[in-house]
């Protein structure tokens, strides 16, 4: 349990400390240190789970099983690498005079606070606390979005705050309904929101209430996942905030929101399995519908972007839609694919955002028209962006291809006709990405464009991991995915 507590405490304390002394020179270094420590403890935690199996016991407030343990490690990893990227990036921003030390303090504190909420949301066993953590994540990041205080950033932050706040409030209503349903079957009111307990009694939960509750939770957490049509906040928030935050938003927040959604889906499925007035597939079908919608619409949006960060945030929406579709589809194969996709997407997308950050520094703008000839100017950044985009577009031997392959084959098995929109969507999204990418990375270098001090090691690390996952999935990870698939769908693959 120590590892677990450390994983939670380190970011919390770091956040407080940075909140107080954040304007000191060593703040960035301390930030990196804290994230590293967090990563170390999360790996420790993972090792423990690897040896002893699920943690947290029957009615504990924390619950670590194969579904969230790798997400915890992943969160810590992306948090660490991104902090390593953010150090030179933020220094550059300060040099450009866009930020003062006060803002940097806010930035570092919020960064750690955000990481804390993420880990809390992942580790907790209590759906209420999960909600609190999700809301906390919004609160922690909203001030980051408006960090630059430009009119656009303030606008984006306000929209982010209101849309997500309302959404998350609806999620709370869903949670209340859930509690209401649980109160009838679970004597001990204190345990009535513990996921592990609910999962056991899910069969007895009231289908009707659960259906309504799931709708609220879907709309609520779906807003955070970025499902169309609740996605509207996402591109604004990604494009206006500092790039490291875009990286963690895309890489972590969306994942965690989806994680919450899947957790409640498990319960709903259990409740609806009994039958009644709703089809047992209700939750799954809803998720499939939203997933497909988001996937298609986001793919179309890609074509008309003028801002590079908006571009990739839409690609995030697209991929979240794909994962939602996968989990909605159910079945071990699709679920396995979805879990894998969560991992590779957050790795790849955060890597891309890191490259994008450097690119926008090189070109001194975020507008796609302004970014030209990256490979000529700074090959590392140009190739990083190119390779990352190729990976996210689903080219082997990168892991994204593997998960999409699994997803497509699963769809082919159960709903063959759905493969048509999927393939069309993939094609459209692909075209949308590359038509913008081509002029940015290739071509002659514009006049007076010079290389910047960039730290591309995070990108290299992420891409190597993604490549590894594409070539061969390590056994322990495959086992985790498999157990998670058992947890979610009741059936295993291996």
């Amino acid at each position, binding site marked *: 349990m120590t590892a677990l507590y450390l994983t939670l405490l380190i970011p919390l304390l770091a956040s407080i400390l940075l909140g107080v002394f954040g304007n000191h020179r060593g703040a960035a270094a301390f930030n990196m240190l804290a994230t590293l420590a967090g990563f170390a403890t999360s790996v420790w935690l993972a090792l423990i789970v690897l040896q002893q199996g699920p943690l947290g016991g029957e009615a504990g407030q924390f619950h670590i099983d194969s579904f969230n343990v790798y997400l915890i490690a992943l969160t810590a990893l992306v948090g660490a690498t991104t902090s390593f990227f953010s150090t030179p990036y933020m220094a550059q921003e300060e040099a450009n005079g866009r930020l003062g030390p006060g803002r940097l303090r806010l930035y570092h504190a919020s960064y750690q606070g955000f990481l804390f909420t993420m880990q809390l949301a992942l580790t907790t066993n209590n759906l209420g606390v999960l909600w609190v953590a999700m809301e906390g994540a919004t609160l922690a990041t909203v001030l980051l979005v408006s960090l630059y205080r430009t009119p656009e950033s303030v606008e984006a932050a*306000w929209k982010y705050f209101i*849309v997500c706040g*309302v959404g998350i409030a609806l999620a709370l209503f869903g949670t209340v309904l859930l509690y209401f349903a649980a109160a009838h079957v679970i004597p001990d009111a204190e345990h009535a929101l513990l996921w592990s307990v609910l999962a056991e009694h899910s069969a007895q939960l009231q289908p009707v209430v659960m259906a309504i509750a799931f*709708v609220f939770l879907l709309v609520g957490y779906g807003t955070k996942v970025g499902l169309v049509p609740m996605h509207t906040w996402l591109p604004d928030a990604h494009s206006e905030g500092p790039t490291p935050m875009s990286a963690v938003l895309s890489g972590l927040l969306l994942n965690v929101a989806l994680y919450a959604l899947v957790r409640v889906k498990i319960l709903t499925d259990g409740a609806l399995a009994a039958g009644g007035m709703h089809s047992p597939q209700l939750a799954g079908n809803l998720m499939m519908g939203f997933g497909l919608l988001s996937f298609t619409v986001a793919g179309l949006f890609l*074509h008309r972007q003028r801002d590079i960060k908006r571009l990739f945030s839409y690609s995030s929406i697209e991929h979240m839609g794909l994962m939602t579709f996968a989990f909605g589809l159910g079945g071990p194969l699709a679920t396995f694919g979805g879990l894998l996709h969560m991992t590779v997407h957050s790795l790849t997308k955060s890597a891309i955002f890191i490259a994008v950050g450097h690119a926008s520094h090189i070109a001194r703008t975020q507008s796609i028209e302004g970014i030209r000839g990256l490979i000529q100017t700074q090959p590392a950044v140009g190739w990083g962006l190119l390779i990352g985009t190729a990976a996210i577009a689903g080219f*082997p031997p990168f892991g994204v291809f593997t998960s999409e392959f699994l997803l*497509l084959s699963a769809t082919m*098995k159960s709903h063959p006709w759905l493969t048509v929109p999927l393939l069309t969507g993939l094609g459209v999204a692909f075209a949308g990405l590359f038509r913008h990418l081509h002029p940015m990375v290739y071509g002659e270098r514009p006049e007076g464009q010079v290389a910047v001090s960039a730290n591309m090691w995070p990108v290299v690390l992420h891409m190597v991991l993604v490549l590894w996952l594409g070539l*061969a999935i390590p056994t322990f990870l495959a086992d985790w995915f498999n157990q998670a698939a058992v947890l979610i769908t009741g059936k295993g693959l291996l």
Partner: protein
Amino acid sequence: MSTSLLLSAVLLLPLLSGVAAFATDRQPSLMRWLVFPLLGLAGLTAVGLGGHVLLHNTIETFIYAPGLPWLHWHFRLDPLAGFFLVLIGIVTSAVSLFGPGYVREFEHGKQPLSVLGFFTGLFVTGMLMVVVAADAFSFMVAWELMSLSSYFLVVYQHQNPANRRAGFLYLLMAEVGALSILLSFGVLAGFGDGFSFEAMRAAPLNLTWASIAFALGVLGFGMKAGLVPLHVWLPEAHPVAPSHISALMSGVMLKVAVYGFIRLSFDLIGDVHWAWGVALLIIASITALFGVLYALMQHDLKRLLAYHSVENIGIIFMGLGLSMIFYGTGYPLLGTLGLVAALYHTLNHALFKSLLFLGAGAVLQRSHERDLERMGGLLKRMPWTGLFFLIGCISISALPPFNGFVSEWLTFQTALQVPNLESGVLRAVIPIAAATLALTGALAAACFVKVYGIAFLGKARTRRVRRSSEADRGMVLAQALLAVLCLLFGIFPTAAVNAMNHVTRTLTGETLSTATANGWLWLTPVSADTASYSAPLVFVGVLLALLAWALMYYVMRPTGRVQTERGDTWDCGFGPLSPRMQYTSTSFTMPIRRIFAPVWRIHEELERESQPGLPLEPKQIRYQVHAEDVTWKWFYAPIMQLLHATTRRVSRIQTGNLRHYLAYSFVTLLLLLWLIT
């Protein structure tokens, strides 16, 4: 040496050469001494392994660690794979001979050599791996590796926009094609259990699903092979890539697509339906004719060659279509004949198309010209390249005794067996396809008379061309190798057919035993008195005939010495002839342009500067013709417009007004609540 070891070597050597390329940024000469030799070694190993598998008719399966937890990479060596290993190996070796000389001009270019070398290695690895892959996953990985790396090679010189545009188009279509291939595998895997090819073979398919899988396969592999109207990327991408890469792409990669198609339809799906054959035959005939007609209108040499690849792919698929028809209607022997014809033409096209692209590369490097209108008289400047290019032209124009003729002859022979068929419709369709093939062949000959006549004969039209000199030894050797092979496969078809029998046996259980029944001298597809062709004797005959005429001259030669005299070309008495009076490629094809006018969208532009005061005596006239690909107008433009319109509509969602956003969530919630109650 064990085959598994060889296989690993075949797959790892090119990869190694790719990795080695990273050292060339510091030490460019390594390109010559390490990277390309490794590539050549890989090619030779592939030839060795493939040849071994093909001749000894072995079938072995290997399982490698990578892949999915429950589906590791399966590799399988069988004669079909062996055949294509040989094909890839030959061209790769030739390219690795050609490369060192050719890439020298890139050493001081804008782009680092390492990129070129690395992706070349990756590209070859991908192609070799596609051929041996034995499960859908590894197949797709290899396939996409091939596409992606070749894309990076196409955009290698990305400073000029043409490369970028071509690269984008190419990658996009490759992606779409790959997805539909994946889908067609998905159908098979859905009915069988799992993605290994064994499971897919076992899959029990009803006709509908089989047809769907087949259609998807045609779409996917046709996209890569360049069946009309899916060919548009090809004339864009092949010309802009470095020439040895164009040789690999046009000569080998298209064949890998053919391999995939054969593997899918004859092996995995198994029992082919004759209707597929008819559909394929029609598409293929259109492709062949379309390809050659567009080739005629080009004056960019490499672009022209690319269109000829389209044409030859059409011919190959004609053979496949015929073979399907005959298999489907219960004539396995004739089906095998068609299949052999197709395989043979695949091999031949790989040889002479690579030869021609290498030749074009040599010309490009020496004269810095790709435009025919500016060439001329190159035969005197680059005699060896000229000779080998001529051999390539003869082979691709299907003239005896070279290899192109044999495969087209076999295709004709297949088509001629049509009276056996019961269905009158088929009997009526096939001859028309044959007519198309004949027309295609004749037009191809015309086209290559144009190419060779304009580029290598006559007088040089520009100074750079006049200054050009012979390419260096390696480049010439590479062409020599391919040219000799063109001749050999033209003279000894029986040996080749014998080898291909192994392929057909493993695929369909049939062999074309009759073809070589009368000994190595005689190629008799069906029976001796139906049709026979003795390439060796024809070759001897050519020599004898030349001898005879020489003899004739000797007999009738005049008494007394008469030596040849050189003089000026007759100029009809108007002053000296200038190179600009020669026929250009545009003027050469003018009659054909008039005959087949509706096929192209011709854009003519005529600029005439008339002298002041003398309107009737123009000082200068510029006349340009550009034949635009009609598929753009009829097929691609509508799609793009649709996409554009849709995206514009969709983007209206993002109004920027917060209350609209909230309204979205609100309405969604209400809808869902209403939905579930």
